[in-house]
């Protein structure tokens, strides 16, 4: 039974010549297909694909750069503020140091300029 089935299948699938006029009919049908809407330009496809592919990483990179620049700016402002505070403190200390120096020089000056006491008082001035 299976042999019969195989034979019938082989007969049904045997190569046969195309009917007369088949090629002409196919050729006639071709111009009708050409009239359809033109396909999009092949160049446009990669651009759109590129945009779709790199838009997110580019946005991330841009956000990273912006945040880096912002961070740098904040750090600069903070460093300037710290430097200003340290500078003002140092200038106050400098003025205080000069005042103490002047007080002590004045003490020496007063001691040197005071007229010498009468003999017997123990004071040395140079």
């Amino acid at each position, binding site marked *: 039974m299976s042999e019969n089935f195989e034979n019938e299948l082989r007969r049904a699938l045997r190569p046969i010549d195309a009917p007369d006029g088949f090629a002409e009919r196919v050729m006639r049908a071709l111009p009708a297909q050409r009239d359809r809407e033109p396909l999009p330009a092949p160049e446009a496809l990669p651009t759109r694909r590129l945009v779709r592919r790199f838009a997110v990483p580019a946005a991330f990179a841009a956000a990273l750069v912006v945040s880096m620049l912002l961070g740098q700016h904040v750090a600069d402002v903070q460093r300037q503020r710290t430097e200003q505070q340290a*500078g003002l403190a140092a200038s106050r*200390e400098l*003025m205080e140091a000069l005042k103490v120096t002047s007080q002590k020089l004045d*003490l020496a000056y007063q001691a040197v300029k005071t007229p010498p006491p009468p003999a017997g008082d*123990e*004071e040395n001035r140079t």
Partner: protein
Amino acid sequence: MTIRIALLLAALESTAPVLSQTPPLKGQLNIPQFAALADKASESVNVTLDSKLLSLGCRFLNAEDPEQADAKKLCTSLSGIYVRSYTFDKDFAYPKADIEGVRRQLSAPGWNRIVEAKSNKEGTNVDVFVLIDNDKAAGLGIIASEPRQFTIVNIVGNIDLEQLHSLEGKFSIPNLGIETGPKTPEAPKKKPQP
């Protein structure tokens, strides 16, 4: 092996502070911190301005203020200012040995005592020293001891005595009669023409 590594690390640790210390500049005194005295003192002034802090402080001085403007001119040539000043409620509450330790450094060659003022009656003792290097003042040291106060001042750098002299009156700095160089003869004054 572990012991060797531990010993090596200990040795490195002990030498690290020595290596990190910068050698003192010419005219710079080794002034102790007097931490114990600061606790006992009723008032204390402790100023430590090395060259970096001094130049920073110098930049922030207000040039429009006459006092600060003069200080600005003076401090540009300096490389350090160190002041320790302590005031006590009792007489002679500070150990004199600490002061003598600093005074000994001022007996080194180059240092010259330009003022010595001692009053046994009032118990004050003020010494002013200048370090001369290549005919220029490279350091100033002041040791002032009073019954209830002692002060050590050390100014390091190319001290322009003329500039210090120009501060006279502004910080109540007196004219100590420091010679600042050869005096040039005064130009003859022109008589006003009738």
